[in-house]
């Protein structure tokens, strides 16, 4: 995948070692892409920057209260993000292979769910790869839609012009 457009990714996790390792791993995994990764320890801090940056993807840990006991959990943060921008893609992370949290995440609008096992980084990168394709397809569909509207307008103007000429200057076509 090779695109010139910058992709902003937020990583929200209260473990700095994990966030930093993931940031570096993403940069290594997608060397041809222009990716800017922003790290946050809580959902509250992430939301302070959200509107300003409008990231395409957020990698969000479910448990965010080990350092800050009052910090909101991943599902609450997911709701805040979706309320601000429904199109932001969210990958939910957790250490627990809990079906309840997985189902809850999907019901609240997460695009994917990754359990932090030994292969977590590979799984996250695979998930990112798929999301990048979705984002690219969505962007191409938007461009195609605009082109179609522009083409329809040109055709409508042409047809309108011909009809107008037929009505007002019928001799022109004879």
């Amino acid at each position, binding site marked *: 995948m090779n695109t010139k457009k910058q992709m902003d990714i937020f990583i929200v996790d209260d473990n700095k070692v*994990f966030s930093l390792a993931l940031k570096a791993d993403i940069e290594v995994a997608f060397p041809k892409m222009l990716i800017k990764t922003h790290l946050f320890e809580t959902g509250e801090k992430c939301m302070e920057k959200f509107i300003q940056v409008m990231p395409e993807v957020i990698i969000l840990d479910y448990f965010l209260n*080990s350092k800050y*006991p009052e910090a909101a959990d991943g599902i609450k943060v997911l709701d805040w993000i979706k309320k601000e921008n429904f199109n932001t893609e969210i990958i939910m992370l957790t*250490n627990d292979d809990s079906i309840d949290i997985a189902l809850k995440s999907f019901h609240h609008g997460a695009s994917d769910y990754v359990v932090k096992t030994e292969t977590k980084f590979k799984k996250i990168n695979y998930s990112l790869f798929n999301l990048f394709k979705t984002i690219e397809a969505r962007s191409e569909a938007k461009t195609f839609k605009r082109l179609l509207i522009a083409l329809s307008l040109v055709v409508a103007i042409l047809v309108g012009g011909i009809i107008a000429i037929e009505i007002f200057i019928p001799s022109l076509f004879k």
Partner: protein
Amino acid sequence: MTTNESKIDKGNVCDLNYLSELMGGKKHLIEEIMDVFLKQVPEELQSINDAIEKINYAAIKGVAHTMKSSVSIMGISVLTPILQEMEDLGSNGTSIEKIKELNRKLILLCNQAIEEIKIEKSKFI
């Protein structure tokens, strides 16, 4: 603590191959993560100690849970079952004595890991 207790194993507890592979061998990235780990682990050990003193099971569970991710990145697999057990006991809200015993092992192994990482880091300079 006796000198013998300060290292429970003569072998290395850290296997930094995983981290190196993950970072594509980029030394500056490996060093950056080592720095964060060396700063973060003592803070986390302090948080667990405080939580044990206050018998705060939720906090014990939370910190043990968070530490699992970082120790796995640094290849300290020997700590994973200890942290898992602490997290489970914290979640059940029972056995503070068992948690204390696990915490003693955790401190010893983390100190050993810190020493090993400091040595590895010094080789970069």
